[in-house]
């Protein structure tokens, strides 16, 4: 019995260690940023599936949705939900095109706040958002990931989002997971799967 308990404790402890976040050193940070930035410079397109989880403390279950994402430099982005319903949003030429289950609309996205949101989304996907003017950033690593934690400096963004966590798998230099944490602690977690860099993307993908 005692051995079993001991084994379990060791197992639990080792699990804890593997997910434990260790602060990165200044040297590690510099190297990490350089790698991500140089990688993101080589990105022309991103094609990926995603799964989105909305967690709210008061709910019994998280709300899950999923879809496809296509990105083309510098800032053309199509975010398409296919489950549980069809909804797509395309950011292109300072405009936002929405297709809500067949109902189409266009929004002018020239406002400052929208520009920031756009930059944030594009940055989250490509990983290139180490903007010290916009965010207070701290860097951590676990056995699986590098994690960049961004705290917005703009009051308007801050009211909506308390913190953004970007997860980079150790062997990749692009984001695999984004966690948007609200001031209440509720969060939205987006996980990217089957990511392909620099594949040819048909322009039709960015047409509403």
């Amino acid at each position, binding site marked *: 019995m005692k051995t079993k308990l001991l084994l379990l404790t060791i197992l639990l402890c080792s699990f804890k260690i593997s997910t434990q976040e260790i602060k990165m050193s200044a040297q590690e940070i510099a190297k990490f940023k350089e790698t991500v930035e140089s990688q993101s410079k080589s990105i022309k397109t991103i094609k990926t599936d995603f799964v*989105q989880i*909305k967690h*709210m403390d*008061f*709910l*019994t*279950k998280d*709300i899950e949705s999923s879809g496809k994402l296509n990105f083309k430099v510098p800032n053309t982005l199509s*975010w398409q*939900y296919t*489950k*549980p*319903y069809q*909804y797509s*949003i395309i950011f292109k030429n300072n405009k936002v095109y*929405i297709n*809500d289950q067949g*109902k189409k*609309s266009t929004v002018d996205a020239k406002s400052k706040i929208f520009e920031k949101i756009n930059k944030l989304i594009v940055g989250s996907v490509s990983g290139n958002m180490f903007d010290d003017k916009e965010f207070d950033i701290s860097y951590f690593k676990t056995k699986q990931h590098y994690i960049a934690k961004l705290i917005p400096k703009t009051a*308007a963004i801050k*009211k*909506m989002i308390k913190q953004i966590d970007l997860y980079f798998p150790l062997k990749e230099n692009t984001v695999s997971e984004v966690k*948007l944490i*609200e*001031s*209440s602690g*509720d969060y*939205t977690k987006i996980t990217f799967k089957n990511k392909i860099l620099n594949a040819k993307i048909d322009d039709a993908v960015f047409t509403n």
Partner: protein
Amino acid sequence: MQKLMMRYLLISTFFCLFLSCKSYQIPDAVEVENTLPVVQNQYFSDASLDYVYKTHIEIYGNDMSGIFIVKRMNDSIHRMVLTTDFGNKLLDFEISKNTFKVNYVFDKLDKKIILNTLRDDFRTLLQVNNKVLKKYNRNNETIYRTENNQYYYIDLITNNLNKIIKTNKRKEKVIFTFNSKKTTFAENISIQHHNIKLKIEFNQIIN
């Protein structure tokens, strides 16, 4: 001529007074004796469920869409959240018959008139138990008048709540329509305002 004018004015004033004093009446309905103390709206009554609906809001020609999430927290309080399709919160309220707590509201919606309208709508939508004041019959419907001049339309065959009409004593103000296969869940819900240009629709999300 002046006399005629006076008479005309008098008549029209009288007529207007008479018309405006007329309280709201359900066409073809007959008042009957009521034995039910409380009429229930069970569409958001199960505390073990998370209710999730796709939402469309039409307000003065503007379209908004998002996700509406409701949970019954205890006997009196419902927590309700409206998010964009991306998942960003727009509203986060806790509502009971007598209380209203705003946990979060998106800046652009943070106006008293908007919050009060939404509070009143969601309070009617979510309130489970409603004290009955009067009962009416009409064809295959029973209609219960409750406090705050609200009318609950129950289908006699299915026993489903089909409609809630909120009146301002004289006229229909807001109509809540429920499309349901059973008494405990509505697949589609619409809230149509008659005095302002506001329509809210909820549709079940099928996985």
